[in-house]
């Protein structure tokens, strides 16, 4: 890289400059973007009926083929008769405070917005190395084999910019899925139909079988089912 002759073509000179700049930054770590406010999701695990309208709305909005699902409704069922239970966990990209996907991207296709903390991927810059898919603890990046690229939820950033809510939220007939500033959602101070006032104490940032939120500090909060509580819910740091 450093031994390459400097080309005459100005465009190639720019590329050489970029490569040299990368080399100068050796061993410097990625510094997470600290957004002005962080948007996140709230999902009511108990009241969700698992209709998957949010999944379909998402696929419709993003033109996804069969296979990749930016949003996924997971059915959790268990117990032994007569003490059986069922609830749903609904996750897409959690637009983490310190997303694991972002620093893995060799092309800079993944970025975090300063104004609202949305983590977006410019799939037109993706070369399909799938590192982000491996790194994400919550399975958000989705590989699209037909194009050999990765894509993911961007919280319908165009809708957000237009002052509306994402397609998944708008499609939720039970009103159990919503977005809002994550700090207010965690405190239970954000007015949302996804949570009844008496459910404020049931808010958790992790449910059973979910990856440790300490890894990336995901921007999501759940109204958890009694069987979905982890032993020791951790508070965000």
């Amino acid at each position, binding site marked *: 890289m450093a031994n390459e002759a400097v080309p005459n073509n100005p465009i190639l000179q720019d590329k050489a400059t970029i490569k040299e700049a990368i080399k100068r930054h050796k061993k410097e770590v990625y510094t997470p973007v600290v957004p002005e406010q962080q948007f996140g999701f709230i999902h009511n695990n108990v009241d969700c009926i698992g209709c998957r309208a949010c999944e379909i709305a998402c696929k419709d909005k993003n033109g996804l083929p069969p296979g990749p699902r930016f949003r996924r409704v997971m059915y*959790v069922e268990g117990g032994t008769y007569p003490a059986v239970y069922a609830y749903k966990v609904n996750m897409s990209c959690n637009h983490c405070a*310190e997303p694991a996907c972002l*620093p893995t991207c060799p*092309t800079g296709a993944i970025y975090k917005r300063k104004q609202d903390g949305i983590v977006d991927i410019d799939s037109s810059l993706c070369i399909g*190395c799938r590192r982000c898919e491996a790194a994400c603890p*919550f*399975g958000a990046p989705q590989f699209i084999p037909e194009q050999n690229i990765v894509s993911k939820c961007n919280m319908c950033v165009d809708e957000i910019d237009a002052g509306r809510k994402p397609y998944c939220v708008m499609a939720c007939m039970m009103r159990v899925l919503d977005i809002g500033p994550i700090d207010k959602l965690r405190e239970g101070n954000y007015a949302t139909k996804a949570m009844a006032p008496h459910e404020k104490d049931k808010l958790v940032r992790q449910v059973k*079988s979910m*990856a440790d939120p300490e*890894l990336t500090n995901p921007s999501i909060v759940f109204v958890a089912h009694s069987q979905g509580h982890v032993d020791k819910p951790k508070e965000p740091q």
Partner: protein
Amino acid sequence: MNTSTDKWWIGVLAIVVAVIGGLGIHFMSNPGGTATPPQEKAAASTTEMQAQTPAPSAPTTSATDTPAPQQQTSISPEQAPETQPVAATLSAATSDYGQARRDPIHFKPAIDQATDADCLKCHQEVLDTNTRDTSPAGLKKVNTLAWYQTLDTYEGEQMTFHQRHLTAPFIKKVANMSCTTCHQGNDPRDEVSGTAVDTQTDLTMRKMVDPNTCLMCHGQFPYQNMGLPGPWHESGAAFQNNCLLCHAAIRTTRHKVNFLNAAGIEQEGVANSDSCYGCHGGRAWYRTSFPYPRHPWAGSGGTVPEWAKNRPTESDLRFLIEGSKP
């Protein structure tokens, strides 16, 4: 004459047609018959499965504009290391995707015995599918570099993460990774585990790999535990960017797990500290560090520091080298 007995031949004809039709369907659905070798049938069934269900985890197609070379990085099932025969029963002849997902090889205990060859019989495409040469917008992969790829240990062109973890030259020097080092099965019921008596309890929602496995080599540099003034990119210069300046003397039982090549790591670490730093903060994905098992070194004293309290003293059982178990 009775008209109903006159038309006995219609019944016979119907039976003959039914028999011929049945045989035809049978042979069309099993074109290879019983003489087809199991491996060929596995390949055939895999192709069929993939054609039916383009699962994200089992890509088969490269981008149409990237006719990437496939031979150089692939491990054929024959090349992959052979160990014990697997108890799994992945039917070579099955063409049913749902049935294949529920094959015992995808669950414990059979997955613990699975070799790479067993996995690659159906999943060879994870190694054969290369990155695109250019992104859809025209960005060439030769001009791209993730920040952690500026480490000295990074070499060669962009590869997929499966290739980097299994076939890249550097990983072969320092590790003995196999498919089951990371993959411990998954629950076909939307990757939620532990909710019924017949499902595994240690799976992670919506993931094929437990992120804690990744954390072992993709966690933060725990400079606070070492008493360093700051992260390695700030404090490394004070130590000549040489890990062994301290850790040549402060030595414990290191890297003695079955997915690492302890001798290779020692050798690479002497040559370049980026080989150490790579897995100890240099390639960090997450904001935490992995709580490695506590192996106090000679002369460390009997006091357990705060950060080491409640840590295990041995690695996970499945990572222990055979014969080294306590």
